[in-house]
């Protein structure tokens, strides 16, 4: 009964969420007294594969067939299930990313495994049963889900488990699964990816703005603040609905749910639908000229003031801080 972790890669590199998943898998393996096998699918550099050892993988199985280079959930799920069988894994860890969510249920169904998605902490172990803490009711609660099946799949939220570097290289070997053409009927027509930006769901710091900014032409100062912080930018629903910012930046109930270390909300009142997507942030800073804005009730730090005055000052103060440290 070992632990298998699927490590998602983009353009030959592992994502931060993949390293978090390996750290998590290692911690679960320690709870169970076993070790971690990581599975990589697609063209990934040998050094990247070996470096998974630094996060706790003992072995790395790598699948690099040309026709499996791009993510197709049916084929990838089949490969992960085969790796789980052949490695004798009882626990399978997958990142709860856009792709991971289309993958984990298929893997669980193939293995007859119970699935807990949106995990935010290590499981509680009692004999053969794992209890996983997961998000529920859009940030308004956590649900402890017992996985009672012999095999278990856990989909770990990004930014929920910290990276743990343990040192060392993993033993890398090729894995050759059998993939049926029936699992490859989906055709990828186009992939569009901004290469130089921090992806929103993975960002440790997010700078977000709302209608208080008055118009799309005023986003320069938001981008500048994000830039000095190395942050991703986001926005509220009214802003994306008005076309001021792309829909991909919309965080909230119907947009993306995020859990960065630091969320800075500027000119956003904090409607319940918005809070549903951001309340899992570890630290929240609110800048709003209305002292009655509901967002202040869930904020850790706040400034009551005009964004056009406060944001440039804050950017300057952070630049000075970064210059000194």
């Amino acid at each position, binding site marked *: 009964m070992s632990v298998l972790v699927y490590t998602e890669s983009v353009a030959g590199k592992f994502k931060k969420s993949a390293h978090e998943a390996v750290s998590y898998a290692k911690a679960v393996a320690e709870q169970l007294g076993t070790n971690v096998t990581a599975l990589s699918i697609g063209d990934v550099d040998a050094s990247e594969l070996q470096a998974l050892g630094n996060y706790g993988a003992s072995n790395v199985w790598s699948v690099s067939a040309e026709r499996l280079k791009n993510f197709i959930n049916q084929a990838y799920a089949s490969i992960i299930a085969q790796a789980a069988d052949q490695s004798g894994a009882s626990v399978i860890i997958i990142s709860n990313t856009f792709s991971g969510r289309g993958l984990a249920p298929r893997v669980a*169904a193939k293995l007859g495994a*119970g699935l807990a998605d949106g995990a935010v902490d290590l499981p509680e172990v009692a004999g053969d049963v794992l209890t996983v803490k997961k998000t529920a009711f859009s940030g308004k609660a956590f649900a402890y889900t017992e996985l009672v099946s012999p095999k278990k799949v856990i989909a770990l939220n990004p930014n929920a488990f910290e990276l743990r570097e343990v040192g060392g290289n993993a033993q890398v070997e090729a894995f050759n699964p059998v993939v049926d053409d029936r699992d490859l009927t989906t055709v990828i027509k186009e992939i569009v990816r901004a290469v130089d930006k921090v992806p929103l769901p993975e960002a440790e710091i997010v700078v977000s703005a709302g209608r208080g900014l008055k118009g799309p032409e005023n986003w320069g100062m938001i981008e500048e603040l994000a830039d000095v912080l190395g942050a991703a930018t986001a926005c509220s629903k009214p802003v994306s609905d008005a076309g001021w910012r792309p829909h991909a930046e919309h965080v909230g109930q119907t947009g993306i749910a995020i859990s960065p270390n630091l969320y800075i909300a500027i000119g956003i009142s904090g409607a319940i639908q918005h809070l549903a997507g951001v309340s899992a942030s570890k630290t929240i800073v609110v800048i709003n000229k209305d002292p009655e804005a509901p967002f202040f009730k869930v904020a850790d730090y706040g*400034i009551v003031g005009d964004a056009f005055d406060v944001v440039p000052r804050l950017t300057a103060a952070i630049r000075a801080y970064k210059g000194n440290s």
Partner: protein
Amino acid sequence: MKILVCISQVPDTTSKITFTDNNTQLNTTGLQYIINPYDEIALSKALELTEGGNGSVTVIHVGESATDATIRKALATGADEAVRVNAAPRDAWFVANQVAGYAKDQGFDLILAGRESIDYNGSQVITFVGELLDVPSVNAAKKVALEGTAVVAEREIEGGKEVLSIPLPAAIGTSEGVAEPRIPNMRGIMSARTKPLTVIDPVDVPVLTQVIRYESPAPKGAVTLVDAGETEKLVDLLHRARVI
């Protein structure tokens, strides 16, 4: 085009969520239930795709008879017929098995559901259904269009998007923006009363998961306010909190 839409009901977005029985049960007192907003989007898309007599829309719901109002609302919005699987929706695996059990010999071209439910925030049902029926799936499509015998779907990926062409039959989870939301009109509400609602018994599904308790997030302490002229102080606080 024959489309099946999976409908769940969830507490209204603005509901206060509390628990009873030592945090093991959701406190349903005073809770208002609505159709899961993402499932409503899926239904709107199905109605758009079958407009002008171009097919039929069946909704399926797993729930006990108290949920009939939710199903009637889906019929009033425009679905042609409804199926209710008479069982409490234990978890996503249970629900997906009911949907797949019903759909397997019905010849649907497309099965739609919301990308997630806003109660347990699982995004499992549509992908489970795809796997159980052995058809391709997209769990969270932002755009869906038909092209001959394929569906073209756009899905979000970290930092961008991906456009997929998927042969029918397929299972697709819908995100916001996939279709203009539709609401029932008076004619719809009248005709919903006479549209067929078939109640079927559940299939047996082994228990793989169960929620054993809940926890409310730790209450936030009071906000620490910083004067607008003292942004350096905020930077210092963030530094001490080790977030920058």
